[in-house]
């Protein structure tokens, strides 16, 4: 199918623009950071960002042309895998909800990777019921800074992050959803204590973050006081789309490829029951790949459907069932684990290491970023329009709720 002429023309113009930029900016001479800064300033960071903020206000689908041209020239990239929360969640939130001066301050070092972002949402007492969170932000009486105290958990990248997207309670006298406010928290201050949270795979991707009178200037508040829940919902929607659609994969590109290779390479391990399971899982994984592609196509043409939640549920189920298949196929070898040493991995790859790690890590896929059960509620209520369960916790002041 032919692309719309206007788009293919713009694609051509963009490629031309990148080549001109490269002619005037030699990465080797400038150095990595200065080169990425200049790329951002030229509007060639993410073309769907607004003009003056790293983009050109163009459709997201045109980004591929830019990325291909920079890659072809061997230019240094912004290493998105090191700043997944920043690019996938913080940037869309800042673009949608932050003030102009804030956007100008945060977006450039975010995109270049100079400043890493993390997300301070979940708490030990507020997981699925995020709106019940207890971290308090209290403003000085003179209308000055906010002082924040509380405990956050499951914070990936917190130990490397300069900024945290923080959801905190600013008014306990209001019902739970109404009393929240959204901030960007400077992670480099003494009131922020980051400790590794070791997970069942042995290493620590995540952290616990203890906030003790951490200081946040009012200028770092995102959205109005009391609007935190609306802003947070925007962040979470982006998270689910990011997890469920991911980047385009070839056939057998993810967990299905590992399972299929293990099957092909070890005929002595095959059983009829496992064969049936593999055929079903292979087909399901390939259909899920098509559905993720369809979701990306809809996003690219500006018709984002609610399919993101479906993609995330399916992604989690397939990772779990495929890795369980692989572990079972491995038999005796599946009872050996590569390494329990406590480590701090800089990036996380669900498909790396051995079947044991993959099986254990996949258990988290249906918990992180919204449990599969909460996602089913969201689908039932927001997509299908079914009525909410009767609740007693939404109308009362937060401080009066039973805990």
């Amino acid at each position, binding site marked *: 199918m032919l692309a719309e002429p206007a788009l293919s023309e713009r694609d051509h113009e963009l490629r031309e623009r990148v080549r001109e930029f490269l002619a005037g900016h030699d990465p080797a001479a400038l150095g990595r950071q200065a080169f990425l800064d200049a790329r951002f300033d030229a509007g060639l960071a993410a073309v769907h960002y607004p003009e003056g903020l790293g983009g050109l206000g163009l459709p997201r689908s045109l980004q591929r042309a830019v990325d291909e041209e920079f890659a072809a020239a061997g230019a240094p990239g912004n290493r998105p895998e090191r700043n997944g929360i920043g690019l996938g969640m913080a940037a869309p939130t800042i673009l949608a909800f932050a003030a102009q001066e804030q956007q100008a301050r945060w977006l450039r070092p975010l995109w270049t990777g100079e400043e890493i972002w993390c997300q301070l949402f979940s708490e030990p007492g507020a997981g699925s019921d995020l709106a019940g969170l207890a971290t308090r932000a209290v403003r000085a009486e003179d209308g000055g800074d906010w002082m924040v105290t509380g405990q956050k958990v499951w914070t990936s990248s917190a130990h490397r992050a300069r900024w945290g997207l923080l959801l905190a309670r600013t008014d306990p006298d209001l019902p739970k959803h109404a009393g929240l406010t959204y901030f960007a928290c400077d992670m480099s201050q003494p009131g922020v204590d980051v400790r590794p949270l070791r997970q069942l795979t042995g290493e620590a991707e995540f952290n616990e973050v203890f906030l003790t009178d951490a200081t946040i200037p009012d200028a770092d508040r995102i959205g109005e006081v009391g609007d935190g829940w609306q802003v947070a919902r925007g962040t979470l929607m982006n998270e689910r789309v990011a997890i469920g659609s991911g980047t385009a994969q070839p056939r057998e590109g993810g967990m299905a490829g590992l399972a299929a290779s293990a099957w*092909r390479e070890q005929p002595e391990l095959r059983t009829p029951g496992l064969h049936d399971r*593999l055929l079903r899982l292979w087909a399901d994984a390939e*259909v899920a790949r098509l559905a993720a592609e*369809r979701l990306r*196509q809809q996003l*690219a*043409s500006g018709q984002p459907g609610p399919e993101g939640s479906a993609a995330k549920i*399916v992604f989690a189920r397939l990772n779990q069932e495929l890795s369980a298949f692989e572990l079972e196929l491995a038999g005796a070898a599946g009872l050996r684990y590569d390494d329990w040493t406590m480590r701090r991995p800089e990036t996380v790859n669900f498909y790396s290491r051995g079947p044991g790690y993959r099986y254990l890590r996949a258990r988290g896929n249906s918990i992180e970023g919204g449990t599969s059960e909460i996602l*089913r509620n969201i*689908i039932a209520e927001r997509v299908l329009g079914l009525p909410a369960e009767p609740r007693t916790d939404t109308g009362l002041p937060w401080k009066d709720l039973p805990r």
Partner: protein
Amino acid sequence: MSAPVASPGLPDLRYGEAEEELRAAVRKLIADRSPLTTVLARAETADPYDPGTWQALAADLGCAGLLIPESRGGAGASYREAAVVAEETGRGALPVPYLASAVMATAALLPSADELLAALADGSVTAALTVPFTTMPPAVSGAALASGVRVGRPGPGDPAGQARLTGTVAGAADALPAGVLLVPADGVPFGLYAVDASAPEVTVSPVVSLDTTRPLADLTFANAPARPVATGEAAAAAVSAALTAGAAMLACEQLGVAQRCLEMTVAYLKERRQFGRAVGSFQALKHRLADVWVALIQARAAARYAAACLADGDPDTPVAVVLAKSACGEAAVQAAQECVQLHGGIGFTWEHPAHLLLKRARSGSAGFGTPDRHRAALAGLVNLPPPGGSIG
């Protein structure tokens, strides 16, 4: 028109504007002429097919000729558009021979540019390929088609070129309303023949069928006069093309069945009250419907991919058919079973149309190969050999 897609290896899996317009027209026609209550009333009559609605769909909306080139009186559209019509016929459990005539017979006749195409395009003739409804497409299974009909010697007064066919076919779909039967027949060589269904040597016996909206028929040919359409490899290719297209478009039809079941169930759970609240507010029921919706989202991507592969003549078509036939078949059965269950008592009555969709889902799931048989074919198609099998 659509934006460039993110992944150059995969086709556009969205619906285009023209497809959505076609869908709206077909949906309106079905709602006006043949709502589920009408389908239900017709189910037990002597004439389960709905010739009036078929004529309106085939001729007035031009759906019979979608796949036929404009030079032969058709619309010159592709399987992407044909798939949308299939979705809508499934959505309405519509008793019309769209799949048999506008998809399968058409696909069988297109390679030889057969003279019948013009009459199929304008809806004046309806045709059906005479194979058991459960036949797997040879392109998927890798097995050659066997026919229960054989080519016999021509009679003494027969015109030159006419053949005679003898044999039986059990459980063919959409043969009852067909004026012309396209019969694959064994002989030397294998051939595809056009037979006048009203000839005295042809018996079309209705079967009391699980699916009353697409009743099957047992066929007997007793030295029936037949016109050769294609012979040898050309005939095998024509029959194979018809079965591949039939399986893919049946999958799209199943997507429509699933969609309708979900919509009906959601509407009912919002309205039905027990324990002082809408039963749709209970999490145990919500999660089941969320699962149906997820299955539907996945199935839609597979159905779109199969339609696109057929439209583009993609070599990945057999895999695409496996994915669509298994995903859509299971989604339809899941959605229809949940539709009956979540409607409670009323869903178990004859009066409520849920059973029409359940029966359509079940028979469509078996049609041109069950999900299980399709997945089993993956072993050969993508090299996942069974225990004891060799690495391909």
